[in-house]
């Protein structure tokens, strides 16, 4: 499904409902009649609920964000690199997900977490940014845009939204990069990687950013490499690497490379 989810096995925690209802899950654990025989000595007075598997507190398992997105600032702007895989549990729902959302010609948002949550709220953010532009006759700053988004989702804190996004852009004060998530975090920084493959990406980018001034091409290369390495080691990331560069005139899409092609290219370079 188009994004059954960019991360969790359900875009919403169906809790007791979804587990029994998934048609394409293997028939191993379907008990059609909803009666779960659970273990326990016969002397127990506890009434087991139909859907308890005897592991109460583990019911709401937090799945890792199955994705890798990263963004970093450098001398000539911001580089945004993302993978394109969406998983529903162990099923790969799509390998061609657009995880960079184009809010307006000079602002980008990345998608990690629930795909519907990210695309809906960032689309709403685009609308708010446009309204701001019309009212104030000037472009909205990255700080203000990220604040709008953070405040919008904060109202739904605790209700199960899942969104980990980076708002990237260029405004009067230069390149801007903020990390915003559905827990209420909003952090300004020079480098962020979000998702299950983030640790691998951090390793590559941290070592590549040692030399202070990168050219645009080197920075793009670094971003691409970082995502590729993350897809190599993380099972939940893969597909293609989409690369964007944000500069003073706005953003432009640098490349979209299939990970398989990149693998062959890097192998050839090693030889």
């Amino acid at each position: 499904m188009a994004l059954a989810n960019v991360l969790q096995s359900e875009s919403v925690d169906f809790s007791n409902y979804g587990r029994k209802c998934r048609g394409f899950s293997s028939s191993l654990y379907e008990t059609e009649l909803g009666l779960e025989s659970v273990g326990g000595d016969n002397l127990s007075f506890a009434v087991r609920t139909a859907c308890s598997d005897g592991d109460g507190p583990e019911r709401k398992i937090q799945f890792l964000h199955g994705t890798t997105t990263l963004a970093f600032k450098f001398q000539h702007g911001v580089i945004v690199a993302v993978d394109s895989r969406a998983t529903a549990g162990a099923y790969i729902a799509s390998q061609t997900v657009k995880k960079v959302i184009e809010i307006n010609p000079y602002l980008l948002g990345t998608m990690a977490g629930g795909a519907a949550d990210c695309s809906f709220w960032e689309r709403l953010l685009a609308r708010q940014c446009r309204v701001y532009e019309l009212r104030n006759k000037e472009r909205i700053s990255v700080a203000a845009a990220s604040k709008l988004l953070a405040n919008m989702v904060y109202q739904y804190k605790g209700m199960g939204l899942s969104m980990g996004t980076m708002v990237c852009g260029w405004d009067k004060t230069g390149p801007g990069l903020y990390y915003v998530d559905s827990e209420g975090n909003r952090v300004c920084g020079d480098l962020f990687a979000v998702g299950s493959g983030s640790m691998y990406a951090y390793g590559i980018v941290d070592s590549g950013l040692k030399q202070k001034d990168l050219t645009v091409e080197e920075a793009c290369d670094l971003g691409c490499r970082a995502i590729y390495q993350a897809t190599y080691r993380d099972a939940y990331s893969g597909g293609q690497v989409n690369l964007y560069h944000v500069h003073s005139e706005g953003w432009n899409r640098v490349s979209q490379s299939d990970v398989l092609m990149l693998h062959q290219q890097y192998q050839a370079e090693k030889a």
Partner: protein
Amino acid sequence: MFATQVYGDNGKMKEYHYTGPVEHRFSPYSFNGGTVLAVAGEDFAIVASDTRLSEGYSIHSRDSPKCYKLTDTTVIGCSGFHGDCLTLTKIIDARLKMYKHSNNKCMTSGAIAAMLSTILYGRRFFPYYVYNIIGGLDEEGKGAVYSFDPVGSYQRDTYKAGGSASAMLQPLLDNQIGFKNMEGVQHLPLSQEKAVQLVKDVFISAAERDVYTGDALRICIVTKDGIKEETVPLRKD
């Protein structure tokens, strides 16, 4: 079935000896099965679905197609919980009428897709348990397929399978239409006849291995000349 399934959701073994009281919760959802598939061609789109309506071990109906015609150029396939499918299609029809009256024109496939996304997200905290796939022609007359998740996340594809047998069909489509994992093969564009034949073959395979898919196959072919429907029998067991 003889595999003694004792695995719980997280892989731990369950035991069958509990005989005490068990609390049953009412679930507002149920799973009615069914598979839908959509393919976009150069100047056509195909939306196909099986016609079996099941619940648990029973089959409620052998003639309940899951493709619904929205406009002259758009068909939607909905599988999952049948109650939500019906309500959702009624809501979409109503919104289409409203749009037609306010804007004096029919909604395009892309617009319907965007609208459906917001309708689905409106129920973010009590979702429509429906897997939707829209197939139709875009403004330029080219085939378009939009696939959704239950809460409204969507994207445009060339082909997509959804519903109970989706995990079986999607890899086959990846290979035959997307030419994935094939070396040295010419990427020929898909003709309408070949696409229809492929859809029939693919559903025959799905009916072999998925209990919720079978009985009959309803194919809707969308071209600039309108929507043509075809029904093909499948395994009834």
